[in-house]
């Protein structure tokens, strides 16, 4: 698989390590009500869809940036690649 890194262009997927579902960006608030339940779901439960999947890849042997890759789990086709930083900020995360 080739991942089109937004800053570095086409890179072999072998340069990356895979973390999983991009919902891991949305870490629950530890002070929220039912925080224990939310952390359980956040840590352990996954949608695991067959089809389009937004997922986190880390450019470990490259520029060490985190990317959000949109990939089809039935065909392995990648349709979009964003910097995870941009995705997190667009969701109102400051850091």
């Amino acid at each position, binding site marked *: 698989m080739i991942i089109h890194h937004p800053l570095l262009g086409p890179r*072999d997927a072998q340069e990356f390590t895979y973390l999983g579902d991009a919902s891991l960006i949305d870490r629950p608030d530890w002070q929220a009500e039912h925080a224990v339940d939310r952390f359980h*779901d956040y*840590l352990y*439960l996954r949608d*695991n869809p067959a089809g389009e999947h937004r*997922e986190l890849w880390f450019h470990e042997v490259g520029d060490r940036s985190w990317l959000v890759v949109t990939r089809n789990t039935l065909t392995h086709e990648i349709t979009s690649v964003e910097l995870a930083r941009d995705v997190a900020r667009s969701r109102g995360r400051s850091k």
Partner: protein
Amino acid sequence: MSESNGCAMRYSGFRVIKEALTGHRGWGPAWRDPEPQPSYDYVIIGGGGHGLATAYYLARHFGKKRIAVLEKGWIGGGNVGRNTTIIRSNYLLDGNEPFYEYSLKLWEGLEQELNYNAMVSQRGILNLYHNDAQRDAFVRRGNAMILSGADAELLSVEQIRARYPFLDFANARFPIRGGLAQHRGGTVRHDAVAWGYARGADSHGVDIIQNCEVTGFRIENGVCKGVETSRGYIGAGKVASCVAGSSSRVMALAGMRLPIESHVLQAFVSEGLKPLLPGVITFGAGHFYCSQSDKGGLVFGGDIDGYNSYAQRGNLPTVEDVCESGMALIPALGRARLLRMWGGVMDMSMDGSPIIDRTHVDGLYFNGGWCYGGFKATPASGMAYAHLLATDTPHETATAYRFDRFRRGLMIDEKGMGAQPNLH
């Protein structure tokens, strides 16, 4: 649903000779091809090894009737027909080892029980170690195995050399220092397991319904009443999901999210060779395992590809990695040509261990999260799931395989990797 049928012919050596002399005209189909009934007491979703074994034990050992197995394709077309056929019970943790040892004991009696040649071959499995720390870890594991009634023996380099002289013992980076052997481990003909359980279940009245995909659940007031399928609605007293790599897709139809990711695992077979590898061996410095099939092919595999996938095919970097590991262990492997390779979709759980449990929906049960090690579990998984379905209590060897173990901090994480499915 018929209680007896014409398919249940007994197999024997005498029968083989008789058929050979009479033109093989007397063999009947091994199981029926029934139309689905409007309702059953038990509907099992998934005609893989685990689903068929569950149906068999439910009928044979728990005396239950009105059971159906619904399979979206053909039985044996999933992981039960795609795996590298290794059986063993060399686990470390309390939640796992008694279960896998129970499974191995069931394998040992399986062919007599089913009157079916599943080619159970206890040719032994040997896990090699390459440094002192690994030896200590293997000694500990061997002791844990012995405590659970399994067999384990630490072998010296000389003992290993006598059986496997062609290994790269003096590898500069990963010299072989010894190994942990389980002599009762080995291989089983994988699709014969599906066929044997199917034939056994059918002969006890189970309807095996192929080309029947479950597309939804009918849930009323928190109770599961039946399943929608590609062949119409089927009512059920109890519904038991048992679909391995498709677990998340099927349970999503009941509104559930699971502690599971689906990943692809590849396997490889070389051209047929003269007998070379007498047992199963695994490399301790990389992920590589290998045995030789009775047809002569070297059957081997390694790591999962590492990203979510339902594609049933992997990518070349993993092929390269597996073959490099193989070459580091068995240099002669480089002379053999690769004949076939394929992929299967693994239900990788968050701690690397399976789940056999009820769900929050009454009458809906779940079996899955087998990762890449569920073939060896087939008999015990079937027995434990049948036990749960029949009695609503867990089998004594499967009490730890609960959904709530993640919430309660009781993970069964053999390798200590944390909630990262692609590392288990």
